[in-house]
């Protein structure tokens, strides 16, 4: 993941996109990306799963991922091919889960203002730089605290714990 520049089309949504619309509990008897992805965001935008292409990016308002602790939510998003989520703010368990499974998420309120649905954007998850390719604009996301960077650099929490257990 490190050093990789992400580029994709934007799906833009509003505030408080909750885990029940990201992946309804009726599908949470599975935690496998290929089973979750076709239902990702289906109660909010039934066309999403059909339209999303690998690399596409979700841009949203405040409190993205609020609600349940279900890790099925970031797994469904990643499984659908989404390369990154940018929001004004994230609910805390969703934030932790995304970092832990290695789904890049960026807090960048200014970028959310300057990006429209359907725009083509480019993101460097390592530096937090976001560029709008459809219309002018480039922004800098808030940097991750060092402890979180350590987890990201280990490729998520699995790599981090493996390292710890073997040291």
């Amino acid at each position, binding site marked *: 993941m490190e050093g990789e520049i992400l580029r994709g089309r934007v799906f833009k949504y509003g505030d*408080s996109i*909750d885990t*029940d*619309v990201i992946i*309804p*509990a*009726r599908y*949470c*008897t*599975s*935690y496998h990306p290929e089973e979750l992805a076709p239902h990702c965001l*289906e*109660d*909010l935008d039934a066309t999403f799963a059909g339209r999303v292409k690998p690399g596409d990016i979700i841009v949203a308002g*405040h*409190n993205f991922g*609020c*609600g*349940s*602790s*279900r*890790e*099925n939510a970031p797994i469904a998003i990643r499984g659908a091919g989404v390369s990154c989520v940018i929001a004004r*703010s994230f*609910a*805390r*368990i969703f934030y*932790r*889960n995304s970092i*832990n*499974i290695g789904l890049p998420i960026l807090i960048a309120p200014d970028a959310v203002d300057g990006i429209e649905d359907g725009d083509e954007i480019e993101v460097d998850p390592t530096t937090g730089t976001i560029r709008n390719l459809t219309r002018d604009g480039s922004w800098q996301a808030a940097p991750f*605290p*060092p*402890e979180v960077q350590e*987890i990201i650099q280990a490729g*998520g*929490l*699995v790599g*981090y*714990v*493996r390292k*710890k*257990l*073997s040291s």
Partner: protein
Amino acid sequence: MTLAEKILAIHSGRDSVRPGDMVMARVDMVLGTDVTVPLSVEVFRQMGAGKVFDTEKIALVNDHFVPAKDVKAATLSKIMREFAREQGVEHYFEVGRSGICHSLLPDKGLVRPGELVVGADSHTCTYGALGAFATGIGSTDMACAWALGELWFRVPESLKVVVEGNFQPRVGPKDLILSVINRLGVDGALYQAIEFTGGAISRMRMDGRFTVCNMAIEAGAKTGLIAPDEVTMGYVDQISPPTPPCNNRGGKGGRPPLGPTLLRSGGDLSSDPDAVYSQVLEVDVSDLEPQVAEPYLPSNGRPVCEVEGVRMDQVVIGSCTNGRLDDFRAAADVMGDRPVHPDVRLIIIPATPGIIRAMLEEHLVERFIKAGAVLSPPTCGPCIGGHMGVLAEGEIGLFTTNRNFRGRNGHPDSKVYLSGPEVAAASAVAGRITDPRGF
């Protein structure tokens, strides 16, 4: 320091911590359920961890989709059951002896004041009612906690809610928390710890305190806490008779005495007078009206008079928010001898087998059944639209649960209103949303 800061400091071996600090802290209890455990088991293996850090500090609870609603759900429970056996996990709860995790763990004496508890379920914050720091995590985090016995935490700012006054009859803890969430908004306490204090909290029984702390997450909070007092200690003593001070884990079924780590280190379980809060919210409950949260957000709470008359198809009294004995007592008191409205399905879901036993003793089960309600086994069921009362297209529910997001309780076009047990009971009888006062 605030109570939240003290608990995190002691569990990370520091003298003090400040909001924003990142700490690696030891956990006293790690909770998982049939929905979240199977993924953790997979991740635990990927981590290369052979054994869990402590077989007595892990609770595995069958509650979300049990008794198994279908083959997939049965498989989830099976994976959890086999993992519990393989690892020798002491606190594995099988169907029949299991209940909704956030009622079950306190009732089994598995959460104590001053402890640091994590759970792969967002309403783990419920245990803050006992003066524990308890917060929700995901499945990968849980696998990490099983492997290492510790996790990273960002020390949260604390937000104080001071609650004074006396509730009117048939107005209670759920009405309070719905109105607080309405004032804060769904992310008004994002990343923060909410500390509830004041005369109305001191006078509140444990069942009500659990209801209040349960919904802290609905304002985005990391946890909700109430500093332990006589009510807390009375509850803990009655649940699990105090064991003599000991430095081991107390063996099977036993746990160390209250707030072990804090008390041992000479710390106390309350916030210091000079503790710093991000915000102080004052609430007087004396004129608080019964509250109802409209679809599709728990922060849509408003006085019942504004939504009175809305017809509904189904009423659910249960969940980790309002599935305790006091809730069923309150509901039965409102209903009296009146039957459930012919157009309404009333589903009663006691949260644990212990609550069912108590309800039997008080003849509450008999009363609900006579009234035409159906009694469900302890399960999350309709609270997450799993089973036991899922809503069809266009149907309207009035639930005592904690979330009414679109599609959560059934068809995406169904609607759920949230309320306390009193409004739910009056409405089940009347067939439309009704003020329980003077009902």
